[in-house]
């Protein structure tokens, strides 16, 4: 029997962990986007939604700690795969090319480390701006609660933040385009027919999520949401 740690840190173990954490993060991103939709409905809907999340209390903390761990594991393994890749080919090719045949090597797959690192930095900034940003309050039905809606509207008046955000969301789309199908392959769940379906689904989903996320700040910036 191999020790558990060496199973997890083997080349296959790392893929399995990346796949599982990747799928969890994708589910989170889908949930996050569903939450964003309430912003389109209006300030009351959005603020009530954030209030509901906050009222989860202890459970929210548990979920948050879980999410942070999943994120950190995903990032650490991703970085380690990148470092090992550089070690595995100390002398680069003088001329590079792409093989003619069935390959999933794309701009997406080759930039996973960079899109991933940008998202890591972005997530930290995003939390500082919103979660730990100015605490405005408002009254809804006589109840005092945080006015996150006001903060969001304020932040997306700034062109730098708005367009920075839009670019990061496009990069998220690129990351998911390779990441989604890759997770299934990493978990050993693909066969030739499945692969085509999952690959297509990944492209569709990443497109949908990127558009979904970037439409919100753009709508605010151009005054469609007030």
């Amino acid at each position, binding site marked *: 029997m191999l020790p558990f740690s060496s199973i997890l840190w083997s080349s296959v173990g790392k893929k399995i962990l990346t796949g599982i954490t990747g799928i969890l993060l994708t589910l989170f991103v889908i949930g996050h986007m569903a939450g964003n939709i309430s912003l389109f409905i209006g300030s009351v809907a959005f603020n009530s939604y954030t209030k509901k999340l906050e009222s989860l209390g202890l459970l929210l903390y548990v979920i948050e700690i879980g999410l942070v761990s999943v994120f950190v594991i995903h990032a650490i393994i991703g970085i380690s795969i990148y470092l090992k890749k550089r070690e595995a080919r100390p002398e680069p090719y003088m001329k590079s090319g*792409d093989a003619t045949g069935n390959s999933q090597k794309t701009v997406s797959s080759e930039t996973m480390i960079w899109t991933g690192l940008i998202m890591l930095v972005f997530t930290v900034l995003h939390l500082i701006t919103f979660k730990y940003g100015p605490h405005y309050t408002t009254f809804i039905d006589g109840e005092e609660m945080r006015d996150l809606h006001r903060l969001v509207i304020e932040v997306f008046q700034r062109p730098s933040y708005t367009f920075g955000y839009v670019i990061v969301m496009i990069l998220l789309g690129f990351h998911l385009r390779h990441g989604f199908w890759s997770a299934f392959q990493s978990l050993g769940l693909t066969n030739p027919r499945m692969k085509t379906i999952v690959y297509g689904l990944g492209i569709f989903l990443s497109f949908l999520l990127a558009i979904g996320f970037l439409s919100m700040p753009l709508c605010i910036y151009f005054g469609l949401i007030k």
Partner: protein
Amino acid sequence: MDTNSKLTLNLKVWRQKNGSAKGKLADYKLTDVSTHMSFLEMLDVLNEQLIKQGEDPVEFDNDCREGICGMCSLVINGVAHGQESSTATCQLHMRKFNDGDTITIEPWRSKAFPVIKDLVVDRTAFDQIISAGGYTSCRVGSAADANSLLIPKDMAEKAMDAAACIGCGACVAACPNGSASLFVAAKIAQFSYLPQGKAERKKRVLNMVGKMDDLGFGDCSNHGECEAACPKEISITHIAIMRKEYVKAAFS
């Protein structure tokens, strides 16, 4: 293209005296290359020319020259075994090139495949992976009766698809990460379909993956470039099978 035409080629060939020397690309001009030649025959012509000039011929690996032994290698214009899909370098023909082409020829590049000389790399790392588990225990001695072990046709076909791997190492050379996953997976998947070797099933996947990791191959990122470069079209579905086998072995 006129199939009888002669080509003039500008070759950029990786020359390296030995494993510890620093190598570089050397330029050679080759004229009158028949389009009927194979890529290796073209190199033979180059070598004759070099020998006549009193220079060291270019070392490259080859053996069967019919696409079945896995000895030939070469990264041609950045692509392992060249642009022609599902073709080993020895089966690649000069009619696939154009007059006046510049062709860059490099060895497999991987820490686990150190250069011995010029275009020849040491692929014993693959042998070590096979020794770690790519075998079955069976009674040797007198030959067993051919049909004493029955294998359903579809299983035999699947095992045969995986067994088509010739162990050339193009998957490693083509992989942006320098991973050997396709080669290792082909062997593991092959045995996973067969009754032979069931006894070593768990040990096989754990040991072969462990050996691959120890030898300094990179991690897989599911680029799938290996499958595109593989002369035998080994599918990355086998890598998915290897992972399933690994989980089964590790948690039971």
